[in-house]
């Protein structure tokens, strides 16, 4: 509990090789215990920024500190954050239970039965006890997202990155997922970085957020969802108008 900030982004620029940068000079901090939203229209670079935050992509420029350990590194040590990808990225050849068990087996010497106990406890957290032995292909969209969250939680992370947990879900399921995220976050004392453009999620569970803009290629606003929604900046109000289905 030494640093109040679990994620510090300074002057960060991200993009793909051979293409103009998607986000430039992004600066924001995520405080311990909050749900931080990364908002923005489709193609504004939310997923790309998230890939940089978790160390899958090198930023074009800028500094990044994750959990006080400097830039994220994906080797050698047990990851202290969990990631849920936009499409779930469950291993198709493994059952749900095996998906959750894999990182536990990699990073602990727990005997098989103990791993199974941990796995079942994770699946219970997300309400998937019955699906332990199913293959991902045999799950519904919402179940797949919950399984992916269970897997992201498997290494007891302090920080959870979620890429559009509610995309492709109906409003009811998506609201249930929001409740699940908040419940887990409170109970486990997690910090959550949540990529979304779902207004419901934004107002219900996001504490603070940063809004990316595709044209401006930068973070155009940072603050609480209410403050952003009331913003006079056309790019910000425009996002909220579009997200609420207005013209």
């Amino acid at each position: 509990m030494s640093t109040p900030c679990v994620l510090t982004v300074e002057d960060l620029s991200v993009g793909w090789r051979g293409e103009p940068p998607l986000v430039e000079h992004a600066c924001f901090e995520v405080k311990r215990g909050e749900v931080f939203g990364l908002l923005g229209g489709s193609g504004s670079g939310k997923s790309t920024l998230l890939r940089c935050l978790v160390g899958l992509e090198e930023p074009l420029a800028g500094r990044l500190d994750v959990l006080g350990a400097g830039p994220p590194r994906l080797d050698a040590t047990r990851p202290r954050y969990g990631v849920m990808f936009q499409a779930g990225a469950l291993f198709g050849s493994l059952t749900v239970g095996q998906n959750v068990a894999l990182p536990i087996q990699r990073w602990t010497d727990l005997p098989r039965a103990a791993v199974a106990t941990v796995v079942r406890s994770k699946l219970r957290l997300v309400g998937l006890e019955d699906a332990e032995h199913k293959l991902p292909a045999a799950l519904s969209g919402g179940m797949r997202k919950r399984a992916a969250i269970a897997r992201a939680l498997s290494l007891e992370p302090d920080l959870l990155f979620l890429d559009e947990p509610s995309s492709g879900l109906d409003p009811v399921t998506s609201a249930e997922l929001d409740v699940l995220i908040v419940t887990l976050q409170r109970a486990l004392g997690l910090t959550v970085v949540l990529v979304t453009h779902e207004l419901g999620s934004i107002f219900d569970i996001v504490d603070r957020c940063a809004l990316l803009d595709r044209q401006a290629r930068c973070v155009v606003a940072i603050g609480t969802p209410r403050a952003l929604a009331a913003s006079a900046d056309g790019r910000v109000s425009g996002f909220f108008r579009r997200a609420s289905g207005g013209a």
Partner: protein
Amino acid sequence: MAASDQPRRGSGPEPGSSRGARAAFSVERGDGRLLLGGDLGLPVAARLWRDLHTLSRAAPPPRLDLDLGGVAAVDGAAMALLVELRAELATRGIECEIVGASRRLEPLVHLYGGHAPPRLRATPARTGWLERLGRATVDAGRGLELAVAFVGAIVAALGGVLRRPASGNWRAVPSLAERAGIDGVPIVLLLDFLVGFVMGYQSADQLALYGAHAFVADVVGISVVRELSPLMTAIVVSGRSGAAFAAEIGTMRVSEEIDALRTMGFCPVRYLVLPRVAALALVGPVLTLLGDIVGVAGGALVGVIKLDIGPTAYLAELRTAIFPADVATGLVKGAAFGVAIALIGCHHGFATTGGAAGVGRRTTATVVTCLFTIVVLDTLFTVFFRMLGL
């Protein structure tokens, strides 16, 4: 082509087309305009497009409007064609507006940008051979860069595993070896048997010319054990396991499963590639050895049914011809081909981009690269072994 300076009708159902009551439309040339009428839609789009071109071809500058006054209904496809015609006319310096649209049609005109100034599309410049050559060079360079990076990753992963053998994903090896090996046994047996048989059949007549029947055993034995069995086995393994590795890893790649592995602290190369390399390094020699046996058996069958050499005599001849070194060189080749196939398949898997189509492309590329590599390697090995006197 009909003279187009007199008013001319593009018409509804053409004579001879017996599709029954087709929605009728009309295009007529007016004064500085084309008058459209009837139902413009997908069913008549091809004829509409032809008529529009015919009628507008000789239109003089500066103006040719499209008058929708008589149009009862337009659909999106037809509207897109009208808008495209405007752009074409604009490139010829002819101004063109869509006019006379009824209130009902107005929103569609707007939706397709028919009210705005035509957007000139830059015609994609034909790429000259020099540019294509340049691009191909850059692509090849990038491919090479990827391959070198992959080799680097393999070496690093290998170093890590050698330092801490327990960190390897060895548990995956048996099932991978089973899939690549045991499941491939029948086809390898069949192929190698047939190859041995064909070899024997072909050489029997030639050798008989010199009265050297018995040497069939030598010819078939040496070629099968040193060359054909390793080659045929590797071809089968390329098609089965090399392609499967590329498809599996490629699919994992495009569905972000590899990224997920990395965020959970796995080294994908160590976790996915090394077990596959180990599996094929085991399976290659084993299948080759089985191939040796059935290949020789194929030759022996020819000896028995065609040359009247008894099985015992055949075996005795074989023993004078084939030395353990011959078998060993074949097995070394088998192992090397196995490793090469696994590396190529995994490399293409990791290099996959672009969804399902990308997976398909990489799978094909794997088989082609494998076959090429195997033949080249085989040549090098053969020369090398001969130089060593093996």
